[in-house]
């Protein structure tokens, strides 16, 4: 039975993979065709083959890897700060009603603000370059992480809490043994959203206020009408986003299986 199902799952997985790759292939083919036929000048639109050639030729050199490294550092730092602030605060807000009520208004207000409006202030407060980029990434990533952590705590089955309480668990034991494990899936869902937003913050921050990183690189390449370089870096940005997302999904699967 399980063997049969295993084969079925694998076949479906393969089918999905093939179809998904076909989807990307179609998009790339259309792009290539538009340029080849001459509807669009490759000077403006580059083309998949040009991007591929440049990517393969220059990936070994420093030209792009410098930017990738810089973006990864800012992105990681921004996400780290957002997680370090968002998870504990979200846990506390989820557990203590008063804190939740107190934070509700300001958080909702700031969440709805377009975070980029704070960018010039960040430049003034933190300085040009990495600090501002990290601050922007952290600000954007904070909200989903905070909101998911608090929703995760609020969603913990009260009977579990009651059971732990009646076996004499204190607040600390309750957190460590019941609330934390039960809210992990939600926290991870928040992390996944936070990753996307941290990358957004990092790249947009680099476009505006940095002299390294993929955002800066794209801005720079586009300013000099080097569209191929621009698209190479866009592809690298997409790759970072997809990889981070997949890594988190994998972690979610790993850490959620025991929940049954």
């Amino acid at each position: 039975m399980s063997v049969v199902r295993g084969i079925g799952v694998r076949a479906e997985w393969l089918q999905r993979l093939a179809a998904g790759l076909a989807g990307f292939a179609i998009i790339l083919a259309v792009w290539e065709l538009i340029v080849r036929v001459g509807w669009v000048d490759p000077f403006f639109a580059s083309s998949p083959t040009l991007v591929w050639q440049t990517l393969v030729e220059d990936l070994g050199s420093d030209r792009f890897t410098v930017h990738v490294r810089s973006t990864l550092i800012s992105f990681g730092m921004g996400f780290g700060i957002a997680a370090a602030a968002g998870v504990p605060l979200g846990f506390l807000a989820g557990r203590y009603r008063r804190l939740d009520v107190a934070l509700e208004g300001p958080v909702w207000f700031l969440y709805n603000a377009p975070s980029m409006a704070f960018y010039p202030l960040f430049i003034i407060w933190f300085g040009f370059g990495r600090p501002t980029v990290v601050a922007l990434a952290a600000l954007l990533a904070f909200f989903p992480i905070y909101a998911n952590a608090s929703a995760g705590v609020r969603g913990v089955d009260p009977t579990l809490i009651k059971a732990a309480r009646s076996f004499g668990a204190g607040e600390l034991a309750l957190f460590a043994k019941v609330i934390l494990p039960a809210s992990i899936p939600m926290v991870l869902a928040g992390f996944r959203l936070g990753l996307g937003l941290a990358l957004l913050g990092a790249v947009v921050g680099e476009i505006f206020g940095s002299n390294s990183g993929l955002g800066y690189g794209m801005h720079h390449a586009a300013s000099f009408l080097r569209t191929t370089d621009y698209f190479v870096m866009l592809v690298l940005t997409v790759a970072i986003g997809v990889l981070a997302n997949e890594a988190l999904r994998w972690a979610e699967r790993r850490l959620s299986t025991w929940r049954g």
Partner: protein
Amino acid sequence: MPSPDHEQPVPQAHDTRAADPAPDAEPHSTDPPSSGPGGARRDRGDAELRPGTRRWPRLSQRGEQVAWSVLPTAVFLALWELAGRGDLINVGFTSTPWAISRRVVGIVTTDGFGTHAWASLEPLAYGLLGAALSGVLAGLILAEIRWVRMTFEPAVMALYCTPRLALLPVLIIWMGIGMGRTVVIVWLGAVFPILINTMAGAFERDRSLSLAARSFGATRLTELRHVTIPACLPHIVTGFRIGSTRGLLGVIVSEMYASSAGIGFLIMRSANAVDVEGLMALAAITAIAGTTMTTSIRVGGSRLIPWRSESAVVV
């Protein structure tokens, strides 16, 4: 803000806290990427929707709740103001709440402000309208036609988890610095949350309703109109709310990058003058605009679809 039944400890699904700040809703709603049919996420969703999981320690009085929601912020603002007046903090870097609010009034009542506000709102409106129409349409197509979904879902997801604002530099090359580019940026930001939520709504709808409709002889189109779309509406509203936040971010970023009018332009002008007070005031104006927009979408959404509150279904 909180609904009257906010404090009742009656076991209910998520809607006991329908007045939540919506970041709450976003996690679930933007989640469904992976919740394709039979996706690993489905079972988790059930667990979260189990009634009675949201019991709150009761606040003794409604007054106390209001106090807790207002006082901490008020105290913070008061301390900020006092610290500024007492020269404990450098006002040149932080300004003070009173000065900022006076400046907000000053900016809003300036003659040219209407022009700038309209310069930002117009592309936002066009972009969001386009995103709503195309996002819902594409979401339904992806949900209903299997081969289209299998082919294009990975590409959609790849775009969804990358910063679309990174397209700004190349859009300038292609479209110049006019309004068209800002419309495209808004559309790019808003369309994916709408699409993905619509798709999730179509997946999570009650299949027995579709079966019932079919067995009474409904055509595919009738089913779509009377079963699928109403079932998706709460998700669409959620997607639209998230999308509109992204759209607003897009407008501001696009205008800050290159433009000669709009709120983003005003921000850059204040930035070049290192006018902290003005920057704070403009940030507050955008936050007020964003909060007004998303709150009215929430309220309007729950009026539009009274049978299900928005946050009751987002998983």
